[in-house]
């Protein structure tokens, strides 16, 4: 059965005529060509399809779009814009840090990892807060996202880099 869905993704409104039982992951990738969101299992086990719904990291493979019609959905394609402090589109500081630290090798887990990291930063890192962020907290936050290339260390260091940048006022996230 098909249905007309209205989805707010990265600030844009999309109307999609699609099968009701398709997952958000499938609708993003197949109906909307938002292929930045990846899949590694489609069973909620690997974290590759992580997107943000109302700022919360969720697995797009376990969500039906009908459930999130009223919500703000953010995917990797919308990350750059959200991190931009000027009119010019800039990469999100996390994206810059990932590139600089070598946090992506094959890069397949990166979109999901970045969205999870963004949710973590938004919750835990404020420029007015000097509360140190423990490496263990970052490890906890990322533990639902598998990576097979890096051994996680560069990913963790990239997140730490941004935490520091936010705290010393170098960037805003």
């Amino acid at each position, binding site marked *: 059965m098909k249905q007309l869905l209205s989805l707010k993704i990265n600030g844009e409104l999309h109307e999609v005529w699609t099968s009701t039982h398709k997952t958000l992951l499938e609708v993003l990738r197949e109906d909307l060509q938002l292929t930045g969101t990846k899949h590694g*299992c489609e069973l909620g*086990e690997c974290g590759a399809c992580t997107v943000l719904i109302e700022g919360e990291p969720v697995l797009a493979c376990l969500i039906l779009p009908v459930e999130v019609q009223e919500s703000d959905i953010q995917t990797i394609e919308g990350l750059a814009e959200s991190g931009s402090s000027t009119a010019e589109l800039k990469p999100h500081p996390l994206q810059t840090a990932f590139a600089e630290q070598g946090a992506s090798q094959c*890069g397949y887990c990166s979109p999901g990892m970045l969205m999870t990291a963004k949710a973590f930063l938004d919750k835990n890192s404020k420029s007015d807060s000097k509360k140190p962020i423990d490496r263990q907290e970052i490890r906890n936050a990322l533990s639902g996202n598998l990576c*097979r290339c*890096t051994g996680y260390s560069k990913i963790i260091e990239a997140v730490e880099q941004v935490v520091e940048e936010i705290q010393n006022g170098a960037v805003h996230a």
Partner: protein
Amino acid sequence: MGQYMPEEKKTANDFEWIGKSWDQLDAMAKAKGETCYADDLFLPRMLYAKMLRSPHPHARIKNIDLTKALKRRGVIAALTGRDVPIPFGILPVSQDEEALCVEKVRMIGDPVAAIAAIDEETAEAALEDIVVEYELLPSILSIEDGLKQLEELELVAPDVPADAQIHAYADSGNIHKQVALEFGDTDAGFAEADHLREELYYYEGNTHLPMEQHASVAQHGADGRVTLWSSTQTPHYVHRALAKVLEMPTSQIRVIATPVGGGFGGKTDPFQHEIVVCKLAMMTGRPVKMTLTREEVFYTHRGRHPVLMWVKAGIKSDGSITALHFRNFLDGGAYGSYGVASTFYTGALQTVTYPIANYKFEAMRVFTNKAPCGPKRGHGTPQPRFALEVLLDKFAEDLGLDPTELRLRHLMPDNSLTVNHLTVTTNGLGECLHKVTEASGFQQRRNESSPGKGLGLGCGSYLSGAGLPIYWNKMPHSGVQIKIDRGGGVTVFCGSTDIGQGSNSVLAGIVAEELGIHLKHVIVVTSDTDLTPVDLGSYSSRVTLMTGNAAIAAARPLREQILSAASEVLKIPAEELTISNGKVGQLNGSGEPVSFVDAVQWAEAKFGTLGSVGSYTPPRRGGKFKGAGVGPSPNYSYSACVAEVTCDPESGLYRVDKLWLAHDIGQAINEKLVIGQVEGGAYMGLSEAMMEEQVYRTGNSASSGGSGPAGLHKIPSMLDYKSLTSLDMPEVETILVETNDPEGPYGAKEAGQGPLLPIMPAIANAIYNAVGVRVDEVPITAEKIFQGLQDLKKGKSGRVGPKKFPSITFPEALRVEPPQ
């Protein structure tokens, strides 16, 4: 132009790019989610394909009825093995795979039919409409059963023992391959020894678990040509396999390797799904995509072989090894894959770390009705390396020596030959050992008796590319083409395949270095059989060394042309000119430099269109005996690891606190990427040391692992197949050692596989140091340690590991004289 010669090498220490750190060329594309992997391709009118897979481990196919499936709305085409019957396989000696099984299935998950439909859901639903009649055959699920001779197979298959033979071409029964080599005289060597040890080790199979599931898209153009986009590490070999199976000249086929979302050896064979999408695209005239489910990736496998090892070693009181004898049984699974090479690799590289006076190596790979094993990071080497390094730890204790000291006393010297005729050009293991033990405080701290704390040492060595290609020929292993645009843009074409390790960055960095320009002016075009010269692919840790040397060979003649043209215009002898930072100027710094772009235009005016090719063929090395083809390499990397663990002496639960890992890289090309490879190798090694297992149900009872038939994968999901998460991975202190090897580009060696090797034995040795339990088996689980602790409490040895070894007669070993 042409062949790379080692003596041409640049010796200057003031590199602009080499040894520095720069971002992967596509680092930002990956961080933005813009990298287009195979499953991200959507072509107009594209169809989706699915394969029906066997629910039986071993069965004859009596009939396949597609009638009902073809009638389903949305189904466009269907295929069985009869439509693509030509067998294929990665190695010329084991062409034993079929795109879809024709006569019989050999494992649960073997595909028998394929459907192309307007969407994935329809294709999947149509699989249910296919009616397959099977006649069940006896299944072979263990090394032990696989070793049975045909007459013994009667026990398994009383009526027709041949029914229990998985492949008729096996060496005998289900023994796919047997090897027996002896270098020197091991009996005499054992007689000279002061200490002898005879032990059993087992290494469980595990799989690559790439984040990206395999995916392919094929298109059949109006010009009759087939294009395949596929997540593969080896587009060249896929190209060859497609030509064979589709019965088309390679000129009519284009293979493009899309960015690979994790390979680790798991995307190195030509695969069934790659052939099926091409065939379906040809039948339908429409693009066809197939993406494997995660469960299907577990069936596709080609991962680490389970290996059961018997090792006998003799050592003198000074620690020198007088003789070493390995006898290995490999559980190969249902197909050949790289298995013959894997079998040899379980014996080839034990000799390159420490001199071994006499060496005997026997191995058998058996076919079993399980997913085929193949090359996973380290290919055939981690299993015997684990055994050897644990064995040395035991010998060190026998001799009252520090494990570091035992190894340091006996290292293969530079420019030496091993007992099995391998050439060691440079060996940085000594420096690795010094640095890693110093950084970790190994020698002092391992003797401190804090309860449950332990430190362990392990070493390893790996090859920087195989000396011989998979199909033997005299052509180069890697080719690079360069063209220069009038605006100074340099495009580099190479068949090499970036699987995330950063080989494109290496290619660009080397060309930038040679031409004296900024990296941003180098455009890299790789892994497209229409556009790029052949490179054999991303396997056997060959890419940096081989494409690196080919890139140097291609860049130097262009540099000469540019300098020659500039010399003419500037009226300064070419040998007094150099290019750096995008400018051509005098070596002595005098005069005003001119821009690279001007010099390029002068060169084009003088020589015509600028272009160049370069290639690399490894030196011919190795012995003259049968089997000497596996093991030779231009150079070998070396690694040493110290692991620190905390183990609960009651439960055996343990955590790894830290790893110190030193790696002899020869010369880092891009330091950041090298460190990434070392850390990634440490992670993958640790994950398999602690938890990873590709295991199958052995019987039909619930006690053999849940519901389903024997031969069914127990845990084909990312939740149940355990791997380390960010919470489990300890800190890794990476130390790079540079030996400046004469064979590598600027002195480089490999980094992709070697750093994994010392991890597993370092963990086993650390556990022993912590709680006195010897786990002679991988993975090293808390359950096994607990068993050892119980054993210790009963006053026994506390050793956990295999206790039985099949008694089977190996063929008489081929005797080879060690080099003089």
